[in-house]
């Protein structure tokens, strides 16, 4: 069966059908991401504390460049088809897919680093201070932990008082386990665990691992969605965006691998398919253009 208006425009819309379809779909996508963006604003503005510097800016910048490059290559792949250059189309499309996979590869490293990074909250202020001293030295220990807290939540301009109950000790567990919790350590019959605290703020020191009693711990969480509101919205939005990158890459790869067949059968329709896939791809780039400053910089 011949699909109508796959190449020719419909007289009433002036568009081939797939183009009208993709724009209606993108309109719904704007609402999907718009809802999450407005949720982000609402959560952030009404939060008492909002962390900063939890993600690496150079990594985010690199991924932004990768997505921009992929937007250029995908539009070039379409232009190559319009110019009748099939090999150029294949090269540009392959480059686009490589960029997509590169983006996801980098993102997976970012996620992995978060899933193996922990915060520990202690039962009470006295216990917390005991561990801060063990981590960073008898004299300066409490001050170093306080400084990490103040810098994470940008409290230098506020009159927020230091509350040792709230202050967490960030670091890594022995063996770098993924998603460990208080409960998983307890059910593994662990009474203590080795914990390597993060470097003091603004340094690259390597503090020695300390031994923490599980009984002294109020809460222990990797940087996963349930860690905090920040990570909940961070993972929701970036994972949804990541799924869009993956979905886009699969569709574009399909166009690449079936290109020879379609080129013989109907080159105009192939160009239109690639244009529509490209429109989706540009939208994914466009979402990232807003995500990058909001998540990484502000």
């Amino acid at each position, binding site marked *: 069966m011949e699909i109508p208006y796959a190449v020719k425009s419909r007289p009433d819309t002036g568009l081939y059908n797939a183009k*009208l379809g993709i*724009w209606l779909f993108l*309109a719904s996508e704007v609402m999907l991401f718009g809802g999450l963006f407005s949720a982000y604003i609402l959560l952030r503005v009404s939060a008492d504390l909002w962390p900063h510097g939890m993600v690496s800016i150079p990594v985010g910048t690199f991924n932004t460049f990768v997505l921009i490059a992929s937007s*250029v290559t995908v539009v070039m792949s379409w*232009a190559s088809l319009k110019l*009748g250059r099939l090999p150029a189309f294949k090269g540009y499309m392959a480059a686009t897919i490589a960029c997509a996979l590169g983006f996801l590869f980098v993102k997976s490293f970012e996620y992995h680093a978060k899933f193996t990074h922990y915060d520990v909250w202690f039962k009470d202020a006295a216990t917390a201070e005991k561990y801060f001293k063990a981590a960073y030295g008898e004299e300066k220990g409490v001050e170093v932990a306080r400084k990490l807290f103040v810098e994470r939540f940008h409290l230098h301009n506020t009159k927020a008082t230091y509350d040792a109950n709230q202050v967490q000790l960030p670091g890594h567990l022995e063996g770098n386990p993924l998603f460990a919790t208080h409960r998983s350590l307890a059910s593994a019959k662990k009474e203590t665990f080795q914990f390597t605290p993060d470097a003091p703020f603004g340094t690259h020191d390597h503090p020695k691992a300390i031994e923490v009693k599980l009984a002294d711990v109020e809460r222990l969480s990797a940087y996963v969605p349930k860690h905090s509101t920040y990570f909940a919205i961070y993972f929701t939005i970036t994972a949804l965006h990541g799924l869009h990158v993956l979905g886009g890459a699969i569709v574009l790869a399909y166009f690449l691998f079936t290109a020879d067949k379609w080129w013989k059968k109907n080159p105009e329709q192939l160009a239109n398919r690639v244009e529509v896939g490209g429109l989706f791809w540009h939208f994914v780039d*466009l979402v990232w253009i807003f995500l990058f400053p909001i998540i990484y910089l502000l």
Partner: protein
Amino acid sequence: MSHDHSHSHGPGAACDHGHAHDDHNSPEYIQKTIKKYMMVGGILFGGTVLTVAMYYVHIPSVAMTIAVALLIATVKAGFVAAVFMHLSDERKMIYGILLCTVFFLVGLMGLTLWAMNDYPFFTLVDGKPA
């Protein structure tokens, strides 16, 4: 290679562009747009560098930082939409769809923010959140 560059609007298709324009499928037209694509790619790279530089320069006002970052992002998004997504030269039907989208997006954002300081009625004690 016998590739037919015929007009994809089709014979008799309603073309709502009021002006006489180049054939959108002619090699000359495509060559011209390729130059535009490269330029926009450059602008997007430059915009990203500018955004990141702004972070390291550190503007003292938080409101100003947010405004500048979102302004740069909006300009970048505008270039992607206008040039890469061909919105600078599209059919009326698509502008209509996007106009509806903008209306509903503004509504979504606006209504959410408007409700920001609302608390469920029964959680209030003496008119204040408990």
